[in-house]
């Protein structure tokens, strides 16, 4: 039954994953630059961002057409609504990867600060959140999505700790103000990436169970 609608929904799912993979690649390129102190990946981040923007427009258009053609209900409707919201988050994540790239560029021109390693660790946590949120979407794994939500606080406090430490360093050594500022901005963008991954996880929970966990905190998964 309803092969056409299923095909259309599968198409949207695949395109979202394509967009998600592009975002993952972009964030990896942007944050690896900090670790390897190289700007080699920057051009790719820019190209990927263009691709991400294009995918957002195309997926949203597909969703609009699907609604017009099939007027989906229940889980089909929830999936389409979640998809439209996910493209918005993924597109912002592409922008954040670009922001990080600019900050890394600035940073690499200045006096290095030890903290760049700690920031790379934070980047790794964020990338795992992004990967898990996309994975939970792919596998329709609600309990994995709920785990992503729990890690958002972790990233928030890590950002606070890093900013605090950087301020200390900048106060003590004014030659590190420019590089410190660049790292603060990177930490801020990473934290925002975590927020968007959290939004995606919330959309996955909504699409799969209909539960709206935004602003209320998710109940622990029944499977845990």
């Amino acid at each position, binding site marked *: 039954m*309803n092969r056409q*609608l299923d095909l259309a929904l599968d198409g949207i799912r695949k395109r979202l994953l394509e967009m998600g993979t592009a975002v993952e690649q972009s964030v990896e390129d942007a944050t690896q630059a900090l670790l390897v102190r190289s700007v080699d990946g920057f051009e790719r981040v820019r190209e990927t961002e263009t691709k991400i923007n294009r995918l957002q427009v195309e997926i949203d258009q597909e969703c609009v057409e699907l609604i017009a053609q099939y007027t989906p*209900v*229940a889980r*089909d409707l929830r999936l389409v609504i979640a998809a439209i919201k996910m493209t918005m988050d993924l597109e912002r994540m592409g922008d954040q990867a670009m922001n990080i790239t600019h900050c890394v560029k600035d940073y690499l021109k200045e006096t290095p600060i030890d903290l760049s390693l700690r920031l790379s660790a934070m980047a790794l946590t964020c990338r795992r959140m992004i990967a898990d949120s996309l994975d939970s979407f792919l596998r329709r794994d609600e309990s994995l999505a709920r785990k992503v939500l729990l890690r958002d606080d972790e990233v928030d406090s890590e950002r606070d700790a890093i900013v605090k430490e950087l301020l200390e360093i900048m106060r003590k050594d004014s030659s590190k103000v420019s590089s410190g500022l660049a790292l603060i901005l990177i930490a801020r963008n990473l934290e925002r990436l975590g927020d968007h991954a959290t939004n995606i996880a919330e959309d996955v929970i909504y699409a799969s169970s*209909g539960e709206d966990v935004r602003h209320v905190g998710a109940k622990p998964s029944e499977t845990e």
Partner: protein
Amino acid sequence: MNSKNLLVTKGLKAFVADFEILHGIDLAVGEREVVALIGPSGCGKSTFLRCLNRLHEETEGAHVEGSVVLEGIELYDRKSDPVALRRRIGMVFQKPNPFPSMSVFDNVAAGIVLQGVKNKSVLQEAVERSLRQAALWDEVKDYLDRPGTSLSGGQQQRLCIARALTVKPPVLLMDEPTSALDPISTAKIEELVAHLKEQMTIVVVTHNMQQASRISDRTAFFLYGNVVEYGATREVFTTPKNRKTEEYITGRFG
């Protein structure tokens, strides 16, 4: 939605000869509430509707068991008169069925004429009130003496609604009232339902899922003569509780 129950069925079973069509339906419909009955063809929703005004028993070999209570009164009580009861429960069918030999006016007046009302001004007033309620007055006020069948399909259906309204029933049953109508006529009937529910309870059978989600407060999903799920329409169409309901409304089954 009003919380007071107006129409309540308990263990309602419908048969034709030995065949049991409905297997004991418990359903409560509130005052000034619109309830949509959905489900695949042959699931018993129309039969259920026809049990609510004792129309089912008019079928040869058919009988009903269980209880239907309207405003505290048992409809299947031996002493209750089906004809009197049908004045309290109006019905509109899939295909508009105005009385073919009657004018627009006479069609609408028919219900109260049968009750013995003869006073011309009373009739005129009732006809105008019903036609206005059915959102048809402006279109037919200058053609009241034309045959009811001369109207368009959508107008005929509103004429049938007006005819049902003349006797001021607290309940209106609608069996796929728009399935034979174009989208504009359909929209008019849906708008009408939204207005009518301020004064009466409406139970509507529909195969149009979007229509059910637009016009009803609660939705009952019928399957093989049982009610599988009955709940707030908003929830049934966004987060149905039963897997069968989900499969049916998303078009994967039925």
